[in-house]
């Protein structure tokens, strides 16, 4: 059987905000949510090689092959004209890796990091690839593995990688079923199942939530979220991330960022509902 290929949007060699310690982060291409405030819509779809972006590239860094786009990274200016052009929420600037090739790349920076996080997009769309990649990481190093996921794929999606997975960071977009569906385009149920599943495995490193006006920013919203989590386990760590309109798309670019005071109020609210560890981004 051939190794599955992973489609990667980009790799960060260092991150202080994607799990414990300093981590490499691999952003996978493709997502099963359509969040209203998505900051990276070009990670949502796989490229279908329509070729539209090729013409717009000022550097002639893109060429259309038989059924794929070739991207000349060396001359690319990262001007993003291609992703603005793409009608399909995709990007021609992705890389395919075998699990070995990806590990080979990450292993070089191994001495500087504590672990590897996979994010996206939504990494659970490429679980077969990730299971093999994580296995390589665990068999060849002391690095820890972490998946940052929206949980929608449901518990069964994660079972193959479980032996090689140290931690999961679950992105709970919203704890209200109807609002969740409005915000992401998908129902909430399987997200919660995944969260319970990771918690039961002792692998739920953190739940995080973006504080978005109208969806997650009211005290009632936070009480519901915090009670839900505390009901699973009061030890679950909750991190609140402030919505930022900069880089958001469509109408959400007009939404307001919550203030420091309001973020602090929500942290207190969550603590008041029994969660022991609640923090927020700057």
């Amino acid at each position, binding site marked *: 059987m051939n190794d599955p290929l992973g489609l990667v949007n980009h790799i960060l*060699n*260092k*991150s*202080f*905000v994607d799990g*414990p*310690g*300093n*981590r490499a982060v691999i952003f996978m291409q493709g997502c099963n949510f359509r969040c209203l405030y998505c900051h990276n819509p070009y990670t949502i779809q796989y490229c279908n090689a329509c070729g539209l972006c090729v013409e717009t590239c000022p550097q002639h860094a893109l060429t259309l092959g038989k059924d794929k786009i070739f991207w000349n990274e060396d001359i690319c200016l990262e001007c993003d004209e291609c992703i603005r052009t793409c009608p399909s929420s995709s990007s021609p600037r992705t890389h395919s890796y075998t699990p070995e090739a990806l590990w080979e790349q990450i292993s070089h*920076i191994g*001495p*500087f*990091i*504590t672990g590897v996080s996979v994010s996206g997009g939504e990494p659970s769309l490429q679980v077969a690839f990730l299971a093999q990649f994580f296995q390589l990481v665990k068999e060849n190093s002391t690095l820890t593995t972490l998946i940052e996921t929206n949980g929608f794929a449901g518990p069964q999606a994660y079972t193959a990688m479980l032996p090689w997975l140290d931690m999961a960071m679950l992105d709970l977009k919203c704890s209200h079923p109807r609002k969740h569906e409005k915000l992401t385009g998908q129902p909430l149920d399987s997200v919660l199942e995944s969260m319970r599943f990771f918690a039961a495995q002792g692998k739920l490193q953190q739940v995080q939530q973006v504080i978005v006006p109208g969806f997650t920013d009211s005290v009632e919203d936070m009480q519901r979220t915090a009670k839900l989590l505390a009901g699973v386990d009061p030890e679950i760590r909750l991190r609140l991330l402030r919505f930022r309109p900069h880089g958001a798309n469509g109408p959400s670019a007009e939404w307001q960022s919550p203030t420091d005071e309001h973020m602090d109020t929500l942290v207190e609210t969550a603590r008041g509902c029994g969660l022991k560890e609640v923090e927020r981004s*700057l």
Partner: protein
Amino acid sequence: MEKRRLPEPFMEFEDLRQGLTAEMVTPFKQHVSDLLHAHDLIYEQKRDALAAAAVGSLPYPPISAAARELLQSGVLCVLGEGAAPYHPRYVAPDYARILHEGSPFLELKPAQTLFDATTSLLTAYKYFPAGGLPVFIGRLDELLEPYIDTVSPETARQVLKSFWLLVDRLNPSGFVHADLGPAASKTGALLLDVDRELGTITNLTLRYDPQHTPQEFALQAISNALGVTKPYFLNHPAMAADWGEDYVIASCYNALPLKGGIYTLVRLNLKRAAEMADDDPERFLDETLPEIGKNWTEVIASRARYIIEDVRWFEDNFWIEEGLLDKHKFSAYAGVFGLAEAVNHFTRTDAHPEASYGHDKAANRLAERITTRIHEVLEDNPVASCEGTDGKACYHAQVGITSDLDTTPATRVPSGEEPELYEHILTEAPTHKWINGGISTILEFDQTAAQNPAAVLDIIQGAFKAGIRNLSIGSANSEFVRVTGYLIRRADLEAHKAEKALRYSSAALGSGVMENHPNHLHRIPRKV
């Protein structure tokens, strides 16, 4: 209004053999008079500058014509020591002995309590026998831990806070240096705590050993470093492999044997040296450096001899008589700076302007070859008086002074030109390999680091695995800036610009460096 030129703290005379000559008497008097009248120097600073001027008026200890030429052309320099050295540049007294046995000369009894111990230390600092300032004030956690439980925990904190305040107020300089670690201790944690609270510029090093420094202590030190730009993180296993356990870090980041000293620091300006070899790096490595090496070590030997035989520094000296310092543990620094410019001199061409240190494999490789070659040259030119380092001059990376206009400190990539973080570390790490007498790489982080100090620890550990010996960790928006090796507060920089007198003599020095190298305020912070 035109900015008034501050008198230089000491004077160099044209002819090194003669020192002050009849023709120079008038300018010399003018220099002395300028010092007396300087408004932005306080009394102590004037007094020190006057003493330096007096020493500067003497002839240099005898050296060959070739060595003299290198000194006069600035390829070599003795960095503010003055022509005739009358004391070692740095010493590292065995303060533990004073605490355990007392000191007859200082009329101190063995310390019984934390009060006794801190009082004895402050007394000893006052009599520090080198350089006008106690550039090494002890491995403080080790020294004070035996006394920490002689008082209540609240009192212990109060005593350490007063002690730390006095260390700064009585010895106001960024070159005053204390060591901590590798083990954690109550004293170590308390000192980090009061250091953060007081915000003084006394220098600190944590001798970090992943095997023996508990994570919690290391994280406390990192949080401090992100706030107040200290302590330094020293790769203790790498240092101990060369020095054994009994070494200390003094002044900026200078390593020397405990109970030992450093007679002199003679600097080699690598940029100037490189220019002597035209465009030929092989000639530089094979001919220029070995040639310079002979004169370099000759100058070192002659200065050490002057201290030992002319001034007879070791005689009638209570530090020696009481066993607080040991003549056999003394050495001298052969310091280098301007490696970046030396490398770029050979690798950067009109066709390849980007082929520079930090950004080009061949350039980085040349940097490694140069630092290795200098090690060999120092091995080939023994200096008998450097007993503390096996009869060879101790290899040191020097951080630079105000007048170094066109050179980068030590072996660093120039501020503002730093490559990506890991690349930066991997560029400078090979240059740390042989330089065990003091060297450091500076990393500045953005504010997200404060929320995740463990991530900074990962990078420190990675850097140490890569061979880095010492790291200065800081955050880009801190009030405390690592100028070159010592710290300066931004507020002092402003005050110096406004020609106000400053308590810290090192701040005046630092301000000069900053005026000439504003890039030190524009290091590339690591966004994460």
